[in-house]
């Protein structure tokens, strides 16, 4: 795709260098962190040799197992619940005649995105403390699943809604004309077309839940350590490259899910 003209009138001087600078700024620290996870020495910053030893000691670590297990339980549950309710909400808010409560409903769905995380964190903590004190209710790890579901909903909602809005409405109308019941039309026409949106939404919900630190740290009870909390506990001890290894695993999970979500969305655009 070489441009025959050497100077494009759209180009602005210096913008290319700034773009490349930004890319370096964003990636160099992450790459350094990843590279040091393969260090054989026991210092986080002093290089001794290439090895996978720290991955081994991370993966054999009992605490790491428990944290990984908690994380998976919480993120999977929050992803499933939030994706289901977000799909329903997206249909309920696009396939309707506009009504007065719609903007308010939209605001409620997006609320978790507008409130700074630390406020959500202390509010959720206060809420669970209150229901534990007043009614003796404590859902254990369910507390975290509920807290995560709340902020996962808008992330799952966005791609699903975008997909519904892009969809060709004449297909649904055609199904209705051919005497399909609304349920049939949904099941056979809308849902299959919606699947990429749902997958993309679920992937985003999973990442935000998997990576959450702030809300989890304040809401988590004893024994509810997740992977980000595990990393935080490690930071406060003398650090070994094991922390780099675990961080790298977390980054790779994020990269995997972002790429999946991104590729699904790209295919839609074609």
């Amino acid at each position, binding site marked *: 795709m070489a441009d025959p003209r050497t100077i494009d*009138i*759209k*180009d*602005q001087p*210096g*913008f290319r260098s*700034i*773009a490349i600078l930004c*890319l370096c*700024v*964003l*990636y160099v*620290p*992450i790459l*350094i*962190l990843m590279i040091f996870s393969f260090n054989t020495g026991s210092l*986080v*910053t*002093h290089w001794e040799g290439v090895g996978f030893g720290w991955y081994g000691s991370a993966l054999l670590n009992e605490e790491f197992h428990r944290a990984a297990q908690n994380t998976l339980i919480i993120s999977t549950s929050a992803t499933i619940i939030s994706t*289901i309710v977000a799909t*329903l909400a997206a*249909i*309920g808010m696009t*396939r309707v*005649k506009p*009504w007065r409560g719609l903007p308010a*409903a939209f605001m*409620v769905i997006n*609320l978790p995105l*507008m*409130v*700074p*995380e*630390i*406020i959500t964190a*202390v*509010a*959720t903590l*206060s809420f669970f403390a*209150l229901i534990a004190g007043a009614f003796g209710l404590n859902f254990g790890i369910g507390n975290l699943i509920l807290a995560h*579901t*709340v902020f996962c*909903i808008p992330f799952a909602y966005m791609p699903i809604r975008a997909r519904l809005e892009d969809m060709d409405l004449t297909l649904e109308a055609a199904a209705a004309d051919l005497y399909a019941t*609304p349920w049939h039309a949904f099941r056979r026409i809308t849902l299959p077309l919606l699947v990429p949106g749902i997958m993309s939404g679920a992937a985003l919900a999973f*990442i935000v839940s998997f*990576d959450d630190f*702030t809300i989890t740290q304040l809401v988590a009870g004893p024994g509810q350590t997740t992977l*980000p909390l595990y*990393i*935080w506990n490690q*930071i406060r001890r003398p650090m070994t490259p094991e*922390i780099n290894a675990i*961080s790298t695993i*977390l*980054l790779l999970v*994020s*990269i995997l*899910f*972002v*790429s999946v979500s991104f590729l699904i969305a790209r295919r839609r655009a074609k």
Partner: protein
Amino acid sequence: MSITLSKAAMFEAQAEKATSWRNRLLALPALVIIGIFGVLPLLIIFVYSFLQAAPYGGVQWKFSTDAYLNFLFQRDIFDDTLQFTPDFLIIYLRSFLYAVVTTVICLLLGFPTAYFMATRPPAQRNWWVLLITIPFWSNLLVRTLAIMFIIRDEGLINNALMGLGLIEKPITMLYTNFAIQLGLLYSFLPFMILPLYSSLEKLDFRLVEAANDLYATRRQVLWRVIIPLSLPGIIAGCLLVFIPALGAYVTPLILGGGIHLMIGDLIAQQFGSGRNWPLGCAQALILMAAVLVALYFYVRNTSGKIQHG
């Protein structure tokens, strides 16, 4: 014939109305979940902020405005008078300053980047978007940790400088204001680039050509055509950086080391070692008020423009 037609139309309208109503109910589960576990907790901290602190964390159900008074004043132990103590206010103003500086620098770096991305051929553009999207969604704690490794006393920068013999002892960067500022910039740069890009991507570049044909210089095209047209994206990007930067928690926690606080750690502290939940709630609500002011300006500035296209 005409009667049956109109009847059919009526039935159809009724059926449509019924579906529309039923569809509205589909939004209910999501709204109920966010309502109970998202909105209700915010109301609870509003109530809590007017209660008294219990000695071991939590609240006592006695009305009190102490939390808000304590935000600005401290009661003298001897004569019970209120004395103005600006400690919290200073942390709020400092956080505001951090957030403003972060927003401005992110904009200065992010705008050229987003513009450069938007002017690439489509295939290249996708790669750029993916490359910026990955850090956007990557674990903030891990990314902050990556910065920490680089700027520590025995970190990469100091090791390199000492290795080259430029300095004799490490320059202290970690646990300084500089560290927090750097961390915020690093954390939120993708939050600026992506909304800017989605706005610039839709820009009609024929307008740039037209301006060029009319003998506008590159600089004039930038300031008189491109920037005004991408203003909604600029405002959205600034807000997406400013709000999380103002309420940042992870960045100052790790890079400030508990010495240099921002609003986020201050609030969390009241729920931990501070054991003053009402004060923490009041501080959270004051932060929320600042965010609402920012959002209000955003809505007021964009609602008109979105309708025009």
